[in-house]
C-alpha cells in the first residue's frame, strides 16, 4: 500500500503545473498559475508534501477533494455505499444463477443441458460490457421503453434504475463462473468416491448436495472473492455508461480531474480491498477443504 501511494505521488510530480492549468484553464497567465500554486501549498518540496499527506491519511484525515470541494472520506464513503448496493444485487443474482447452471451442466457432462448452458455462457461472456451496455439500453430503453436510461438515483433509490447495470454485469460474468463450476463439478462427478456413493444406492440428490457440491465449489468460491475486487474497480464501464455514481466512476473522475488526494484514497481502498478479499477467500478455503486445515 505504501509503495502504491508513493508511486502515485511521484507520477503526479512528473507533471508539474498541471493542477494549476486544470484549475485556472488553459488561457491563464503563468503569473496567475504561480500565485495559485503558492496559495494552495503546491510550492513546497514534493517529499514534504508526501509525508504530510501520509501522516494525515494514517490518522484518518484524508484531505479535501479538489474537484468535489468536500472531504475525501465523505465522498469515498457515499460512492462505496452505492457500489456496495450494486455489488450486493450483482452477487445476489450472479451466485444462484451461475452456480446453479454450472452444477446442472456439470452433473451430466455431455447432456443436452450441458451443451445448452455452455453455448449460452460462451455467447454472453464473449460480449464485453461496453458492447452489452449499448445493446441492453437499445432494447429496454429505446425499443421497449421499459426502463429508465440512466441510473443517477437523484430522486432517491430506485430498483428500476438498478436493473440494467446489474443485468450487464451479470451477463458478462455469469458465463465465466458457470463454466468454471461446470468444469470442477464434472471433475468431481468422475471421482471414485462419488461413483462409489452412487453405486451404494444413495439417492442421487443426496450425493450431489452432500458429497459433490462441497468439493466442486472450492474453485468458484475463490473466483467469486476475486470478483469483489474486480467489481470495485472494474465496474467503471458500467457506472460510466449509466451515469451511476459509484466507486468505479469516482476513480475515473478523480484521475481525469487530477484530484491527487481523492485518487490516493481510492487507490488505498482498492489495495486494502484486494488484501481483505484474499484473506477471506483463504479462510473460506479452509472451511471448504478440510485437507488444508492440517497443513
Amino acid at each position, binding site marked *: 500500500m505504501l509503495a502504491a501511494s508513493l508511486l502515485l505521488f511521484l507520477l503526479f510530480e512528473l507533471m508539474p503545473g*498541471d493542477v494549476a492549468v486544470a484549475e*485556472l484553464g*488553459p488561457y491563464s497567465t503563468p503569473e496567475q498559475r504561480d*500565485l495559485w500554486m503558492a*496559495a494552495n501549498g503546491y510550492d513546497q518540496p514534493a517529499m514534504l508534501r508526501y509525508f504530510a499527506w501520509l501522516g494525515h491519511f494514517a490518522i484518518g484525515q484524508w484531505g479535501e477533494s479538489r474537484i468535489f470541494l468536500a472531504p475525501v472520506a465523505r465522498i469515498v464513503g457515499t460512492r462505496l455505499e452505492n457500489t456496495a448496493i450494486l455489488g450486493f444485487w450483482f452477487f445476489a443474482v450472479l451466485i444462484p444463477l451461475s452456480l446453479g447452471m454450472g452444477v446442472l451442466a456439470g452433473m451430466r457432462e455431455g447432456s443436452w443441458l450441458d451443451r445448452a448452458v455452455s453455448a449460452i455462457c460462451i455467447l454472453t461472456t464473449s460480449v464485453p460490457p461496453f458492447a452489452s451496455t449499448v445493446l441492453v439500453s437499445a432494447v429496454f*430503453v429505446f425499443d421497449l421503453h421499459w426502463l429508465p436510461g440512466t441510473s*443517477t438515483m437523484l430522486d432517491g433509490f430506485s430498483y428500476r434504475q438498478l436493473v440494467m447495470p446489474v443485468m450487464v454485469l451479470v451477463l458478462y460474468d455469469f458465463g465465466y463462473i458457470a463454466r468454471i463450476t461446470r468444469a470442477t463439478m464434472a471433475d468431481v462427478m468422475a471421482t471414485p468416491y462419488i461413483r462409489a456413493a452412487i453405486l451404494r444406492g444413495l439417492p442421487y440428490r443426496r450425493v450431489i448436495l452432500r458429497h459433490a457440491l462441497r468439493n466442486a465449489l472450492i474453485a468458484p468460491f475463490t473466483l467469486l472473492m476475486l470478483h469483489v475486487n474486480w467489481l470495485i474497480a472494474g465496474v467503471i464501464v458500467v457506472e460510466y455508461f449509466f451515469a451511476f455514481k459509484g466507486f468505479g466512476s469516482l476513480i475515473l473522475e478523480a484521475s481525469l480531474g487530477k484530484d491527487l488526494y481523492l485518487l490516493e484514497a481510492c487507490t488505498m481502498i482498492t489495495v486494502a480491498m484486494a488484501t481483505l478479499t484474499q484473506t477471506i477467500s483463504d479462510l473460506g478455503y479452509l472451511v471448504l477443504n478440510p485437507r488444508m486445515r492440517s497443513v
Partner: protein
Amino acid sequence: MTVDHEHPYLSQLRQQLRDNRIDRREFLRTATLLGMAAGAAYAVAGLPAPARAQEEMPKGGKIRIGMHVQEIKDPQTLSWVEPTNVLRGCVQYLTVTDQANITRGQLLEKWDPSEDLKTWTLTIRQEAKWRSGRPFTADDAIWNIKRVLDPKTGSSVLGLMKGYMLEEYDTGAQKDGKPVKSTRLWSDKAIEKIDDKTLRLNCKAPQLAVPEHMFHFPFFMLDPAENGAFKVGMNGTGPYEIVAYNVGQNAIVRASKTYWGKPVNLDEVEFVDLGTDSGATIAALASGQVDGVYDVDFSELDTIKALPDINIHSVTTAQTSVVRGKCDQKPFNDARVRQALKLAIDQQKVIDIVFRGAASVGEHHHVAPVHPEYAKLPMIHQDIPKAKQLLAAAGYPDGLKLEIACKPSPAWELASVTVMTEMWKQAGIDVKINVMPAASFWQVWDKVPFGYTAWTHRPLGVMVLGLAYRSGVPWNESNYSNPEFDRLLVQAEGILDPDKRRVVMAKLEQIMQEDGPVVQPLWRVVQAAYHKKVKGFRMHPTEYIFLDELAVEKA
C-alpha cells in the same frame, strides 16, 4: 439615451442603414455597442424586438437539463461554460451578448464611449437590486472589476482587458534568476466612480469591444459583502437562487421572490450530471429523465433525430481549430510550404467525413462568416499538383516529413487531423500524429513546431487576428510576423464603419490565405436538444443557457 450624449458615429450609422450599405444586424450590433439602447436600435432598424415579452409563455413548472455539474471555487475564475449556465440565473453581468450577436445592457442601462473609444461611461439601471434588497451600485461594479483584474484572483478576464486597463511592473522579487513581473491598473484613475449609479473606465488604449468583454463568461457581478465566495444560497442580482449544488450529481435553482426584474417563467430548473458518456445522455433524453441536454455531439445527432418529440437546436459559430507551423522554423519559414499545406486540403471532405456535413467550410484566414467585418473571398479549393509544385519550388521536391501535435478530445479534432494527414500524403507530405493528453497539450500548445489548436468563438474578426497573428503577442503561437499585416490590422481596429473595415479586412484575409501560418478546414456548428414542451430556448454560439428565457408547457 439622450441625443446630446450620443456617440457621433451613430448618426452616420443610421444613414448607412437607410442607404442599405449595412444590413440590419450589423446596424444593431454596432449601434448597441456604441451605447444605443437595444430596444431603440431595433426600432430604428425596423425590426420587432426579439420576443423578450413572453405573453404566450406558460408560467410555472420545472425542467431538467442534462449537463456536467462541475466544481465552482470562485465564479470569476471559471474556465468552463457549464458551471456558468447554473450561475447565470443567480448572478448577472453588466452586459449580455445575445444569440444574434447583439450586446445589450443587463445590469447596465447604457454606456457612452468617447469618440476616441478610450473613455467609457457606464450607467447602472436604477431599479437593479441584489436579492437581499440592497440596490446594485457603482461601488459594487467597481469592486468586481478590480477583483477580476487582480492577478491573485486568477480570472481570465485579466488577459482580455490587460491591453487597455493594466500595465506590467517589476515586483522586485526573483525567480530562477529572472525578475518576477506582475500587472496592476495602469493608472489610479483607470476606474472612476461618478455617482452611485455611474462609473467610468479610462483606458490606456482605444478599445471597441468593452461591452463584449463585460460579458466574458466569468465576469459575474458578485456581492462584495460575501467577498465573492460561491456557496449554495449565495446572494446575487439574478432571478434564481441556487438551492442545491452537488458536484458530479446535480444542481437546482429556484425562482426568487425578490428579483428586481421581470418575473421568470420556470419555478425550478435542475441540472443533472450524466457523466461524459454520450450513450448516457441519449438514454436519459429518450426515457424522459431529462427534458434537454446542454450539448449534443455530432456523433449523437442521428440517434437524437430519431427520437420523437425532441427538437435539435443548432447554430454556426466562430469556434474552430487551426493547423499552424512555427513560421520562424524550417520548413514553415517558407510561405510556399505554408500554402502547399493549405492547398492539399479539401475542406468539404473533412467536414463530410468528420461531422457528416454538420460544420461550415473554413477559408484558411480565421475570420468567420458570422463576424460583422467578414469579407467574402474566392474559395480556395484543393489543388494537389499546385501543392507539389510549390513544395518543389521551396526546395522539397521529395516531399516533407512532419509531426503534428494534437489532443484526443474533443474527438473531432483528432479525427480531422487524421483525415488531413491522408490528404497531405497525396501531396507528398508525410505527417505523423502525436496525440497528447489535453492537459499536457495545453502546456505546450504555443511551443510545438507544428500543432492543431482550438480557438473559441469571439464576436469580432479583428479580435481573433489581433490575439493570434499580430507580431509578438503572447498567443501568437505560430510566431507569425508580417509588418504589412500588423499595419493593416491596426488600421482595421481603428475603423468603426464595418463597410470600410471590411475593405481592409479583405486585404488581411488575403494575406492570411497567401502568406499566413494556418490551415483552417472548418467552422464548428454547436447543437443542443430539448423536448418540444420546452419553450423559449435559442442556441447561443458559446452554448450559454439563459434560464430566464425558458418556459415549459404543462403536460
